[in-house]
């Protein structure tokens, strides 16, 4: 069953660069879909289209549809705020808000108007456990979030999104600045999370793509070249360009 369906998506920025060209693909529910390819391929732009974060950028024109559970996300009539709660996002560099650890986690809920202390505390614990961070920080939830290490901060960002109980989690090179141990902790968390969430990941290395992908899509300069089950794409890709990239002939 597909959670997100992209239909002929084309995205053009103010300066004329065409970031995505006629992209059509499906993202299955409760699995990790990996969008990989060399820089400038449009992967980040695609992610930002899912949660309409591209509204903040200098976008000139968008055409096509993105269906989340059958509803077109790009429709101007859509409640963008509700959409962004349903779709969580983790960015490449950990950006913790200038609050305590607890404050970071309750921020999204407070935005919604949630005030019940008990529900907030439950959400804090629940999301920290999901992000595999609870054991490390449960005794210092009121410490400033900036005091955490890079890897912990990134998992905090993951927990922050999870606190809103989204359905989809988008991750844009989430481990690019992290050491191997933190990276494997994040990847392990994702493997657990995919049982209940739909995960779309832009990896920072082809190896990470290989490790984590249930499904994969190869992007080259705004074009979707090939997509399919991860194993297939990495072991016997159908398209020559995919094969060149996967084997390291360019990139």
């Amino acid at each position, binding site marked *: 069953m597909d959670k997100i369906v992209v239909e002929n998506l084309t995205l053009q920025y103010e300066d004329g660069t065409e970031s995505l060209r006629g992209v059509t693909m499906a993202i299955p529910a409760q699995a990790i879909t990996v969008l990989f390819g060399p820089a400038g391929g449009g992967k980040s732009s695609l992610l930002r289209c899912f949660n309409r974060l591209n509204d*903040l950028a200098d976008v000139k024109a968008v055409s096509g549809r993105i269906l989340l559970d059958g509803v077109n996300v790009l429709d101007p009539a859509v409640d963008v705020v509700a959409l962004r709660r349903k779709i969580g996002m983790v960015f490449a560099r950990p950006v913790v808000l200038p609050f305590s650890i607890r404050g970071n986690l309750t921020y999204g809920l407070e935005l919604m108007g949630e005030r019940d202390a008990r529900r907030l505390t439950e959400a804090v614990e629940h999301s920290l456990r999901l992000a595999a961070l609870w054991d490390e920080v449960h005794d210092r939830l009121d410490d400033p979030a900036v005091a955490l290490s890079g890897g912990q901060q990134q998992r905090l960002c993951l927990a922050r999104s999870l606190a809103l109980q989204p359905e989809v989690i988008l991750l844009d090179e989430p481990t690019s600045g992290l050491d191997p141990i933190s990276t494997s902790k994040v990847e392990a968390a994702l493997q657990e999370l995919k049982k209940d969430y739909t995960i779309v990941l832009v990896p920072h290395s082809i190896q990470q793509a290989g490790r984590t992908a249930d499904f994969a899509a190869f992007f080259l300069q705004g074009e979707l070249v090939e997509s399919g089950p991860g194993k297939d794409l990495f072991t016997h890709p159908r398209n020559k360009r995919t094969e060149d990239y996967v084997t390291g002939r360019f990139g």
Partner: protein
Amino acid sequence: MRAHPRAGAAEPLRNWQEAVLSRVIRLSGYSAIVFVGLIFLFLVREGLPALVEVPLADLFSARWYPIEGYFGVLPLITGSLIVTVGAMAVAIPFGIGTAMFISEIAPRWAREVLKPMVELLGGLPSVVLGFLGMLVLSPFLRQALDLPTGLTALAGSLLLAGIALPTIVSIAEDALDAVPKSYREGALALGATRWQTMWGVTLPAARSGVLTAVMLGIGRAIGETMAVMMVTGNAPVLAVRLASIVAPARTMTATIAAEMGEVASGSTHYHVLFFIGMVLFLISLAVNVAASAVVFRQRTRAERVLS
């Protein structure tokens, strides 16, 4: 740097309160334009009648004696001019020199002392400087230069220099600081001394910022009221000879301040004072537009080079 949608896209608003707030904030943004317009409007409204009530030849004559109906503003203009020029003759070299010192030569500890000191000078109310000018500076000048009175344009110039200095120093220092280290390092690598680098490379690279600093300093000097009012002697004489610098003079600003209180609203004198205010407004407008133009031109030149 915006948190929200570009023009045209729908902006999410939670409730009507946010919508109202949004509207209020947008209106506030334009308030500066509204106020400038309002000020100009009022100055013109009360100042333009002067052009009607006083024949142009008389208005620009050399006799300012309102009690007897003489409204020649020329002495006031020359008064402002000579005091400002004198002030800049001191403030520009001292200002740029101090800025160069702070930015290029001073060790860190000296910088930490100098910058607050200059900021302190900038914070001193001009009436205090005028007060001290009256009690200390003028008598000193009278004795040192053997003058009939110390209340002269020179005293005003010296005080004005002190008042304009913080503006010039801080803006020029910012501009010098902003010059990339690579410029200096490149010059030194080619064998230039630090001195040569400062004047041959760094200062020219910062010249638009330094020019802006000087222009804003000039603006500050022309606009100063209290300090000059207290030390220049307030004699509206045409200040055109070199010797005028050590004679009393009167600036446009001091004239308004001194005479506005005793003037009947709506009288010719009243209108002429507003007219002078209008002239001052236009002068400061010209200075600021010129300063902005300098910055703008420098920026576009840099953009062209870098693209």
